């Protein structure tokens, strides 16, 4: 068992507390105008993954996919339940985020590598491969902000995939880049899975999910609708749901 989630629930809070000052806070408290809304972004999700599994998470917007991934990667702590993980996790939650526009491509690569928990020695050894795979050899010393968005996501993908984590989390990652790179990255993904890594993929492309994943988790409004290795079955039912054939 490389990753196990047991009855994980994450309570999210939103409301007036963002971007307000002390003055505003006190005023609102006095006027009883201060509201904080709590809701369960993820509620009662349980699943487990073995080595080499590729999990596809599907669900409409607001289903709690990103929140679940944050709980898996340890950025958020589950309010209830627990997450057990073994090995290193590389999470690509949003491409380009966490990169610094003023630093060069090379500096950003090292910084990202460090954030993903790799050592300097490892980065020194892998750096050429990463840049090579991302096809950015000529742009190494350019500031990151001057890159096109395709280049940025290529770099992000290369860093996360070439460092060979035990668990790789990809949130809407494969849908970027041009056709050629997309093919290349899908091949890379297969290679990683065959190498024994466990991967979690969030994608709105059902076709991609069907082709690549070995297990499916379907979330709806934070709740777990289905989980299992029956990729086609779950995807068909999800497709029917999207077409409005039934309601949840």
């Amino acid at each position, binding site marked *: 068992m490389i990753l196990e989630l047991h009855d994980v629930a994450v309570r*999210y*809070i*939103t409301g007036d*507390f*963002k*971007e*307000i*000052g*002390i*003055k505003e*806070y006190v005023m609102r408290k006095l006027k009883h105008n201060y509201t904080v809304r709590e809701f369960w972004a993820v509620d009662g999700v349980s699943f487990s993954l073995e080595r080499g599994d590729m999990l596809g998470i599907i669900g409409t917007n607001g289903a709690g996919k990103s929140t679940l991934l*944050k709980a898996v*990667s*340890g*950025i*958020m*702590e589950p309010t209830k339940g627990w997450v057990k993980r073994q090995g290193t*996790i590389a*999470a690509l*939650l*949003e491409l380009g*985020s*966490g990169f*610094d526009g*003023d*630093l060069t491509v090379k*500096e950003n690569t*090292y*910084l990202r590598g*460090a*954030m*993903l*928990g*790799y*050592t*300097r020695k490892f*980065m020194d050894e892998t750096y050429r491969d990463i840049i090579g795979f991302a096809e950015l050899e000529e742009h190494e010393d350019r500031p990151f902000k001057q890159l096109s968005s395709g280049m940025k996501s290529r770099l992000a993908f290369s860093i996360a995939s070439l460092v060979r984590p035990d668990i790789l989390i990809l949130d809407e990652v494969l849908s970027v880049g041009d056709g050629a790179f997309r093919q290349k990255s899908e091949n890379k993904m297969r290679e990683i899975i065959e190498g024994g890594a466990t991967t979690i993929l969030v994608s709105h492309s059902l076709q991609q999910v069907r082709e690549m994943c070995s297990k499916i988790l379907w979330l709806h409004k934070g709740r777990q609708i289905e989980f299992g290795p029956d990729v086609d079955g779950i995807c068909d039912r999800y497709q029917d749901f999207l077409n409005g054939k039934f309601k949840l």
Partner: protein
Amino acid sequence: MKSIFNKINSYHFLFGELVKRDFKKKYKRTTLGMAWSVLSPLLMLLVMRMVFTQFFGRGMDHYTTYLFCGNLVFSCFNESTTQGMTSLMGNAAIFSKVNVPKYLFLFSKNVQTLINFGLTLCVFFVFCILDGITFTWKFILLLYPISCLVLFNIGVGLILSALFVFFRDIQYLWGIFTQLLMYMSAIFYTIDRYSHTVQHLFLLNPVYLFIRYFRKIVIEATIPTVWFHLLMGADALIMLGIGCWMYKKYNHRFLYYV
């Protein structure tokens, strides 16, 4: 055991990269670069020296050194806390996407201010020579207030950076507070003329303690009492304790506020 070692090693790498990043970002656009951060306290000193000597410096030996002690400590405190305040929020894009220890951002900023402090300290010693100060072995003891100051700054920085996530107007309040603190830290005046009670009240101000320690060693060549040492150490540890407690308590809540 091996994994703990790996963890420390990888955070060490991340920390280094963060320091490098902050460094490059800060000095990228100024041609004077690091010289500027040494120059600005010197200019402050120059102005104070010209303006206040007539009022506060009469009949006082080494008034320049007296002023410099105050400026040196206060500007370190001011820079460290003011810049540290935004360190967590400024890296929200990182810590909301990658699981990294959040205090590293503040530490990285503090390394930067420490380097500036070190440079200014060298200039300070040059000024001491020019001002005819005799160097004694007691100067080594300055390491104590410096260590306490660093811990104190980190503590205040932790508290402020956490508060800044919750309340953005802390920035302005802190600006006003540091201004008031500057006038209360006896940077350019002496406290001899106050009554004993008031003189003791000054000891409640940690920044004043650091400044006083510097002046005792450098100008008067005397070692402060044990109580003075303990008070200073306690101030630093209390602030650091509160800061760590806040980070521990709100570690997973910061995310909701960014």
